[in-house]
């Protein structure tokens, strides 16, 4: 589904990603772990071109997204993204947040989007918040709405950029629960997170990033039980 070849990204002289080759298949739940500054967020943001790679190619469903001839806006419609800071639109109600993109991009009529929005709100367990504004919600609720907003586009893959890092501890669970349900339904997911418990339970594959490369990868059982590199051992020693 997503095929990454020789991906490099530098900010000025500072090289953040130093050549990544990776293939993410349909239905996989890939969790990316690593210390801060290891490039995991940058890698994820390159996948939908929020960061422009310096070098390399990324194919999404067979289309090279780095090629400026291909319409990135069309491709992004199929890649949902959830941010650390939620980034809900504060001037719109929850329902308007969800409906905006499908309606403005003419993928759904107003009525279809309305129906979809209510359905998604049901799914993330917040049907009563349809007409609330984001500022009236807790962080956990906002992040659940953000997930619903991304799902409204019927994406083929969901990218999560540290979705629980900005949350109070007691709210982490409700967001992870939604993500777990999503995984069970077969959604392809790429998740950058510090929640090792989530990685262990949900991931089909875990990538450990260090200094701009994928230093080690495998199933969660392999990776957490038998880390090979010293780096990963040191990292796991700190977080587990």
């Amino acid at each position: 589904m997503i095929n990454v070849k020789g991906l490099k990204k530098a900010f000025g002289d500072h090289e953040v990603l130093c050549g990544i080759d990776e293939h993410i298949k349909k239905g996989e739940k890939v969790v990316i772990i690593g210390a801060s500054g290891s490039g995991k967020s940058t890698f994820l943001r390159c996948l939908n071109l929020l960061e422009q790679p310096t070098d390399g190619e990324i194919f999404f469903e067979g289309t090279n997204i780095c090629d400026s001839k291909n319409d990135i806006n069309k491709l992004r419609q199929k890649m949902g993204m959830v941010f650390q800071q939620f980034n809900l639109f504060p001037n719109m109600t929850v329902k308007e947040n969800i409906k905006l993109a499908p309606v403005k991009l003419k993928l759904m009529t107003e009525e279809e989007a309305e129906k979809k929005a209510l359905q998604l709100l049901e799914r993330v367990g917040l049907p009563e918040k349809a007409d609330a504004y984001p500022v009236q919600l807790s962080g956990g609720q906002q992040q659940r709405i953000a997930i619903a907003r991304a799902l409204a586009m019927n994406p083929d893959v969901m990218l999560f950029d540290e979705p629980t890092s900005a949350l109070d501890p007691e709210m982490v669970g409700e967001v992870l629960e939604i993500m777990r349900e999503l995984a069970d339904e077969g959604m392809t997911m790429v998740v950058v997170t510090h929640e090792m418990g989530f990685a262990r339970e949900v991931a089909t594959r875990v990538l450990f990033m260090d200094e701009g490369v994928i230093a080690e990868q495998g199933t969660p059982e392999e990776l957490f039980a038998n880390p090979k590199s010293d780096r990963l051992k040191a990292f796991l020693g700190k977080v587990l």
Partner: protein
Amino acid sequence: MSILTFAKWIGEMAPDWVVALPESLQRLCFQFFQVFIYENRWQFFTDGLTMTFTVTIGALILGVIIGMIVAIVRSTHDSSRGKPNIILRFFNSICKIYVTVLRGTPLMVQLLIMGFVVMVPKGEVETVMCAIITLGINSGAYVAEIARSGIMSINAGQMEAGRSLGLNYRQTMTYIIIPQAFKNILPALGNELIALLKETSLVTVIALQDVTKAAQVIVSKTYTATIPYVSLAIIYLVLVIILTKLLGILERRLRASDKR
């Protein structure tokens, strides 16, 4: 047109209740009569006000359009990563020069140049156009900086969220960034609107009959300055107070999403 004297007014025209007043108040009433009522002179003020409104509204619309365009060019340029493309850099420097020149010279001088060098309007309609264009271009420079601060005050995450949903840059700007920016800049924009309304008084230098000119005409007809000019000040003050109230209402309505 003969000049009306105080003695003649008291003797022939004044109502009885005025005649019964002490002389100082009689004189005040006389001035008031002379300025507003005699020969229907209040019409100078109402005609002048119509002109003031026309110029203010025209300049406001033009200023906001120019200001938004300049602000979008400038902030798109500043927020693009790496080296922006040559066309954007070109327009950005044009916008910078525009803001520098228009903010760097007095509005009075700009009016004189537009009125007597560049446009040289003949007839009233052309003069009104000249005033609207000059004030609009001038106001645009200030609106541009205000709008730019508004756009830049919106968290970069909002743009990313919009783009990640598949909206393009223009759609994200239109549906997400600008509505939020507008709410943030409304107080500053209101300030600019009030300044604009008051600055229209300068259009007298290109011989436009606005409300300030009306007061000047009446002074020259009556040889009395107190009542016309104090009334003029009160007219502007009342207009500004009304505007302030209207802006307050708009601000409260836009703040609906901030309520917890």
